[in-house]
């Protein structure tokens, strides 16, 4: 393979990778915040909150990320008075998308806790919110964290679509190099390799982390 090409243009790859990681990271962090709210709405007794959250999750999961990105990129500036810039708009699109998936991760994590746990807690006189806080959430976190890691890995790959609105992520920079060098294949190969290395390392780390969590279940 043409290593000279990589050495010559490594800055493009490096900067693109950083952008991809940054946007994915922000997407997961802010997506989690919104996701927590959505999942609590979905688990609440309030019908309206439940309906809103369900509808949101269905719509996001039922439409392509590419379409969502375009809608935010062109739509949000029409509503908002200030200029947000493509980086912010891209991040918003990603976080709104990822919030829907994360909400489902959190809901599943909470519902996976045996009903007996909340019954035991309630029978001791603890309120619903105390039960959530001291009994359910601490146990659910063990199921939720690894799934959040998976969501981050997914975002690293999926965020490549952001190149369509001109965010200088790894995919965009690979495209740029194609234009500069008139070599269509090599930049894409390198981009693919970098994507793969990132996701491979992340999923290995996640495995180790998961095993730690399991171990703490057995030995303590």
């Amino acid at each position, binding site marked *: 393979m043409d290593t000279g090409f990589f050495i010559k243009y490594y800055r493009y790859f490096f900067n693109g990778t950083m952008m991809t990681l940054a946007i994915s990271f922000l997407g997961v962090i802010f997506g989690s915040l919104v996701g927590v709210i959505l999942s609590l709405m979905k688990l609440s007794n309030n019908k309206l909150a439940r309906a809103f959250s369900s509808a949101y999750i269905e719509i996001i999961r039922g439409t392509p990320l590419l379409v969502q990105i375009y809608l935010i990129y062109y739509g949000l500036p029409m509503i908002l008075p200030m200029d947000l810039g493509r980086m912010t708009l891209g991040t918003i699109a990603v976080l709104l998308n990822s919030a829907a998936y994360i909400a489902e991760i959190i809901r599943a994590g909470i519902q996976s806790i045996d009903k007996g746990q909340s019954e035991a807690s*309630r029978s*001791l*006189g603890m309120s619903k919110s105390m039960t959530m806080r001291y009994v359910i959430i601490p*146990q659910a976190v063990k199921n939720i964290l690894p799934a959040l890691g998976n969501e981050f890995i997914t975002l690293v790959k999926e965020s490549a679509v952001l190149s369509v609105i001109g965010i200088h992520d790894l995919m965009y920079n690979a495209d740029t190099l194609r234009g500069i060098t008139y070599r269509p294949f090599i930049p894409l190969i390198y981009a693919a390799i970098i994507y793969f290395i990132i996701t491979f390392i992340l999923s290995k780390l996640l495995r180790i982390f998961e095993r730690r969590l399991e171990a703490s279940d057995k030995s303590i």
Partner: protein
Amino acid sequence: MIKVSNLKKNFGSLKVLKGIDENIEKGEVVVIIGPSGSGKSTFLRCLNLLEEPSSGEIIFDGVSITDKLNDINKQREKMGMVFQQFNLFPHMTVLENITLAPIKVKNMEPVEAEKTALNLLKRIGLEDKINTYPNQLSGGQKQRIAIVRALAMSPEVMLFDEPTSALDPEMVGEVLDVMKGLAKEGMTMVVVTHEMGFAKEVGDRVLFMDEGKIVEEGTPEELFNNSKHSRTQDFLKKVLI
């Protein structure tokens, strides 16, 4: 102490409880027996509203707990419950399991809650397990600790939902011993169980339930030796071999 009138519970179209009237006096040990599906667990779970009754009234300590205006959490503080599956909190040590509710619900000082917990653990001979996590305990130990966890709230009544059904046979005795001790101290207890020996020995009153109704009730002597209903006799014939 607990007065139940015309209690009914439906799960969809399935009528699980078809009108229960019952009075449980202070200091009484009431044992509920009956075939599976007879509604005895549902009845017990209605007493602290883990199951919401479809109709009827339950009055505990002069307060209607079926009245939605009354704070059920306050009433539950006074009713301990022990489950078939123990339901200890796996992410907490034995000590934390026992002290959580007294500290959070009753605002007890942690030091004081720990002292209470230790005393209770000593009573069941498990004070050395104080910093252990539940998954390192045997079934019998878990259930004894679950009982102590409920006792730490100083309840006025203890509800037992088949407390020995999930245990290996050799561990049933240790749990029943703790329950017998409680009964001797005068604790009001409602026990759903298949342990006929326990019912005979400890029960002040035995209720036989079938198909969502209390078919027959009386002292253990009356029910086990002189039951009047053929359904009770059939059931007892099958379980007392």
